[in-house]
């Protein structure tokens, strides 16, 4: 079974005016060669900025608008409370018809996240007929990040990437929290160690 958050299917319509997206195509097209992706990402960024979700933030990492860095804070009342996680998002050229590639940059101890930060989540896999994933073009960056944030508090133990974590989650929450804190590194700390690179 996979995690599915029907509430996440919010409309990704933008608040930008037509003038903005028309202009943006010219300026940023050279970085990707695909104006539609740029347009879409620009409007997503605009809606993220104008109606921010608490605990989530994301921003393009460089002049290439298809690579973003994101920050989420761990949900309260879970072992991840008060922790900050860094992620990278990389959008394919046919976005939003294919999901972005999302990785944790912060080490996470979680049943559905592996040692190199890959995430097992149905909406991050290509959806459609004959495919097991649940990605859909109506999803957007903010819904993806929200899903990942929820995943932290509600792991899907049926298909774990980290079997030990899955077992521990069900048996011993105290021990689980210890492991989480042992693995976790705050972004500032990682920066000092030169580990956090993002894109």
């Amino acid at each position, binding site marked *: 079974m996979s995690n599915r958050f029907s509430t996440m299917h919010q409309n990704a319509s933008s608040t930008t005016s037509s003038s903005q997206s028309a202009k943006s195509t010219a300026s940023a097209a050279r970085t990707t060669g695909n104006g539609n992706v740029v347009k879409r990402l620009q409007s997503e960024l605009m809606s993220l*900025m*104008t109606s921010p979700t608490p605990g989530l933030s994301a921003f*393009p990492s460089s002049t290439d608008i298809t690579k973003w860095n994101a920050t989420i804070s761990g949900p309260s009342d879970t072992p991840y409370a008060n922790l900050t996680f860094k992620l990278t998002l990389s959008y394919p050229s046919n976005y939003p018809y294919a999901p972005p590639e999302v990785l944790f940059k912060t080490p996470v101890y979680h049943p559905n996240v592996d040692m190199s930060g890959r995430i097992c989540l149905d909406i991050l896999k290509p959806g459609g007929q004959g495919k097991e994933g649940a990605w859909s073009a109506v999803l957007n960056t903010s819904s993806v990040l929200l899903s990942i944030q929820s995943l932290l508090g509600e792991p899907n133990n049926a298909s774990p990437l980290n079997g030990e974590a899955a077992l521990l989650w069900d048996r011993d929450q105290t021990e689980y929290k210890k492991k989480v804190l042992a693995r976790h590194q705050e972004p500032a700390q990682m920066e000092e160690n030169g580990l956090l690179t993002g894109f």
Partner: protein
Amino acid sequence: MLLGDAHLAHVQPALSRLRDRAQQALHTVARNTVPSQRLEKTLGLLIFRYVQEKLALCGDPEDCAKAKHCQCGLNADDLPFAQLRHIGFGDAIGERALALAVDKLLSGPALDRPCYRVDWDNDAPVAWKLDWWTQFCLSEFLENSVNALTGDSKYYLNMNERTDVLANAAGKNFARQRTAAIFEYVKSWPKGKGALHDIGVYSASIEGKAYVCGAFIIQVQTRLLHAGASTIEILSIYTNVIYVFRELDPRGVMLEKVAGPIRNYLRTRDDTVNIIAASFLAATVDAEGVIHIKKADLDKICFRIAVEAAKSSLANNRQQKTLDWNDMAWKPEPVDAGPNHKAAESDDIVTYILGLFDPEDFIKEITTVLAQHLLQATDPEYVKETRLVELLKSRLDATKLQAVEVMLKDMRDSVTLNKRISIRSGDVDIQPPAPAEIRAAMPEEGITSAELYKRFQHRMKQAQFIAMLKVVANKRHDLYYPKRTRLPPDAAARASIDVGTVNDTIDSHPDIRVQVLSSFFWPQMRANEFHLPRALADLEQKFNDRFASLGNQRKLRYRHALSRVTVRLALEDRNLEHVDVPAWRASVIDAFLEEPTVTAEQLAQGLGMEEDLVQDALAFWTANRVLYQPTPGSYAVLERLDMDNGDTDPTNQQQPQPVEPIPSIVSQDDMLKASAPMFETFIANMLRNGGPKEVGGMMGITSMMKMVLPTFTFGGEETKWLLLRLEGRGEVVRHGDTWAAAG
């Protein structure tokens, strides 16, 4: 006796020889005890002093001026050269002393004489006068002196020595002396060629060029490029610089060198583009080619630029010179040109002015100025504006001027539109159109009769229409063209909204004229909303209906803050008319119809108007003695001038103070302030997710903002301002040059 005489005669020469020898020995001793260098110097100084005095006295400048060359001769006989030779100074020491004296003379005193003043009357160079003087008068003096020193008359200066050594040294010093005041010449007398020719003779050499450029740059930097000089002044001197240095060096190498610092400085001034654009629009040329500039504009524009822009040709000067293999006039680039020297495509002042900025920045700025200008223009043909756009098209990339062209087209379309939709509030029933209206509705490129009739079908029958059409149109191949006869101007072509207010007795049928702008292409404009006077609001509604009935799909959104109104006031003792008053002022004065005495707050509330607009309107009407304050804070209409007992400041009452016009285009600054919260969110998010960043650079905050947010058109300064605001709220922290998210 005879013997004695003979003896004496024999002794006499011997004695004098002895005396000579003793004297010579004495001189030799004296000469050898004093260092010869000092001796030369002192001797040289003495000769110099003497010659200087002599030069000051000799000759009459008037005579020299009449004779066209300086005749101030010097006489070597007056100097004790023979005696010098006699005492043994005739050799190297005397010659060197003479050389020192002449050198000193040529480095100043000889050039300062009245004969070599700048010839402003004839614009002729005087350098050649000096040339002549050194070659003939001075050389002669030198020859005589040396001959007197050496005692023979063999010494003479050949032509080479006269020109190459003497005249060149004099010419060089002379030009350097002129160069010391070059800034003054450029600033005050750019057209007076006298002084410049003198410099030009010298600056023909490479060494001279470098010297003149260096001296000019230093003078410009100390005297012009500082906060005390206004941008208009710098711009007008810049045009002078272009003019003067092109004169000095037609290839433009010198200009390239000296213009650099001024250009860089001008780029840092915020108002430069604005002034240039305003200057381009200021001048009008009438049929005889005489340039007219409004006096009121003179302190806002650069006069020279205005004149040059009006004179410049519209021909497309942007030729790809390097690609033209048949260009027989092609010349290689000058040897002393800098690495980024470009042969000017067309080298008039307009090109240099346009070249000051990045074309895109310039177009952006000029769009703003032009928009402001178009909204206020009263000329229905938009001659000046069209000319400017054509000028820009010929000089800049025409494809980037799309917005400007659309703006111009909007204005022209509005003129036709208003001719077609002429609304007077008095129109009760639909009247058949006048022939003039049908003519006005016809586009220049022709139209079919069926197409044209559609516009009038609700107003007249087709047969009637065809008859009328034949009167005003020519038919060619099914298309009708307007006849080129002059019809009396349509009353609706007034560039204002007429409205009668207050006592409402003069004209209760205001007429309206609407300019329809394509919002995408126009810069952002003021969008203050407020209630218009009832009569105008009705007109607006009517216009909307007519506009839609003409088959227009476009949605109209009124910008009331940009409207201008002609207000006629009939007060008890006087009638007043104010032309082109901003609409908010009309709304405010209209409000007094219902409420005789109101306060500013009540007005703001009743009209839904912003406080500063209310204050502006009240200040305007009070200054024009239409309103007064019966009690402080409340306003009432001044029906009779004697009603105001003058308890307010009388000086304020006597002279209507000029009220600063509120610009209709939103300035960059206001745009920044309005969008600051959004920009700040972007920056805070960027720093939180992307880590610490610097303001500038490829991956700096400014360029990132520009990339992700096309509406962010600002530079590093503005970014810093935003960052400082964020820092003030504790959202970001600064580490040296880098900024990071706080916490």
